[in-house]
């Protein structure tokens, strides 16, 4: 029983990381149908931001708290720049966008290598987050995992509220549901796109801060994460968030269970097969946004 719960929590914490990474993608992919391969490098930017801040702010806890908003703005600005300079020119060609942003991600990786060196760097975790929480029944949960779970859920909650309640959220939803009609109704769709990209990329920055708690920071850290995150969005269905949330945790648990029963490598293959099988059943993802748009 303890093992079962232990595995379940491992799965949930894998899912929380996936969710944090995929949340920004769900936003940008969902709104603009654009695959941004440089999203992983925005995560990296967030992680390096934490590292840089820790050089000047000595308290590990304080620097982490400062890093969250700073990384959001840094990564978000990079995303908005990318949108303005390249992506908006390619809206009609999603596949080409994928390749172009891959090129951008290559350049950003090399930039990180030139600035910070190719070896991985490490940040210090605040003491509060290094311990474990003991639960009844001999179960322990690592504090940093708990923190990431909390951060992911907070991000989901904040994003959901922002989309539901703010004027910007209303505009974003309008553009997702029917771009042409939104434009006709007087919404400046290109400005909404830019803001969405800022927020989506900013969320990647937050994910980067969270990842510094789990492992080292390196120039290629983004590449390894991005594909899983895309799978979450594809399986979850685009245009809404709840699919991504459910799928992130489901894949996390599946991965953890598969890993427990077999090995890490076989678990990855199991996840892939499960995804292909799922898409046989629901090719448009778990939830689809019902709209009257013809596209």
């Amino acid at each position, binding site marked *: 029983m303890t093992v079962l719960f232990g595995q379940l929590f491992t799965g949930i914490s894998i899912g929380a990381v996936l969710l944090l990474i995929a949340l920004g993608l769900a936003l940008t992919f969902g709104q603009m149908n654009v695959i941004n391969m440089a999203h992983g490098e925005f995560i990296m930017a967030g992680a390096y931001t934490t590292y840089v801040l820790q050089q000047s702010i000595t308290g590990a806890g304080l620097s982490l708290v400062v890093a969250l908003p700073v990384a959001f703005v840094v990564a978000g600005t990079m995303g908005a720049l990318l949108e303005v300079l390249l992506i908006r020119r390619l809206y009609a060609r999603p*596949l080409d966008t994928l390749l172009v942003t891959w090129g951008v991600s290559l350049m950003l990786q*090399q930039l990180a290598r030139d600035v910070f060196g190719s070896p991985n760097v490490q940040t210090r975790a605040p003491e509060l987050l290094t311990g474990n929480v003991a639960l009844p029944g001999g179960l322990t949960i690592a504090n940093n995992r708990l923190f990431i779970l909390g951060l992911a859920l907070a991000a989901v909650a904040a994003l959901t509220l922002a989309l539901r309640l703010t004027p910007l959220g209303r505009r974003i939803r309008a553009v997702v549901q029917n771009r042409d009609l939104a434009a006709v109704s007087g919404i400046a769709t290109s400005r909404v796109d830019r803001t969405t990209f800022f927020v989506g990329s900013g969320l990647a920055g937050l994910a980067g801060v969270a990842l510094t708690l789990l492992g080292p920071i390196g120039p290629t850290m983004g590449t390894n994460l991005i594909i899983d995150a895309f799978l979450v969005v594809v399986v979850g269905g685009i245009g809404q968030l709840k699919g991504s949330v459910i799928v992130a945790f489901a894949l996390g648990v599946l991965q953890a269970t598969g890993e427990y029963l077999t090995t890490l490598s076989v678990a990855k293959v199991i996840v892939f097969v499960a995804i*292909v099988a799922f898409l046989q059943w629901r090719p448009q993802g778990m939830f689809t946004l019902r709209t009257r748009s013809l596209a």
Partner: protein
Amino acid sequence: MTAVTPAPPSTAVDPAPVSAVPPSRPGGRPRLRTAAGFAFGAALLFAVAPLVLSDFRLSLLAKYLCVAMVAVGIGIAWGRGGMLTLGQGVFFGLGGYAMAMHLKLADAGPAGMPDFMQLYGQLDELPLWWRPFASPWFALPATVLLPMAVAFGLGSLVFRRRVRGAYFAILSQALAAAMVILLIGQQGTTGGTNGLTDIKGFFGYDLDDPVNQRMVYFIIAGTLLALLALARQLIHSRYGELLVAVRDGEERVRFLGYDPASVKLVAYVVAAGMAGLAGALFVPAVGIISPALIGIVPSIEFVIGVAVGGRATLLGPVLGAVAVAWARTALSERFPGTWTYLQGLLFVVVVAFLPGGLASLWALARRRDGSAAPARRGWSPLARRRAARRTEVPAA
């Protein structure tokens, strides 16, 4: 008083743009041109290159030509069929591993086992799934059929359910990721991160011998030409027309009564077979196959050569792939960091601003001559066929 005589009706009624573009139409002269082109290519590969290049450079060229074979397949699947496949490394790897497994077993002798197995796996006997590869009659067909079977399996599931565009690209990339993780994880039987290395013999010939290396080069060059001929026939067949039609308007083709899923499946499977063959020939040319050669990054790098050369043309992918691979060797020897920037820039500039690749520059220059009318992409099948031949790129 001179009356202005009207032009004779025969010329006034211009038979429309149809006759305006003779060079790319099938018929007597183009066929001759194709034959001449192939003869020229063969002369270049078989006579000029071996004479001009040193043994070292020739073996590098052999490696580039393997990449070019993958590019021919990507040109068909992506350029003509609109399927951006970011997982060709999987098929390249399947072919490569099948060949390398056979060669390792042949090196080890009838009763022996590949050297790494005792090292990592502490295995006492050969794993069951290695055994068939001892026979060349199994291993050689497997280099092509195994990738085709995997592509058929994935493709028939995915295309039937109309998973396409970016979704398909992501899935194909995830396949590459899963394959690499599997290979690394099963170190005892696959060689892990190192892959299968140190391959000495090739069907009884010693690969260290420069003469035999040259033979391998000739086999690769010949195979590439054969694949190009196959690709040309495919592109110019009725099927080729249908493939382009599916790329540009899948729903319309469906309403015409065709099944777009099977049309796409054929292109995907053919591309996979070509990648598998390339992987199989890569092994004797380079002497190694490893996860680092087939993962996410190399898989997407196969695509850049195709984009640079011109994705929808026959020769563009080959020339682009060789050029990019050559530039990579030349530059990364001296400035490793610079090459990565350049590669990124190449992706951005070519794909964003020159989607037809360098081939479109060629077509543009020819059009400037005034010899040909500007291509018009109309609704008529003929106009569309012409437009497609002209390397126009779809709004993906």
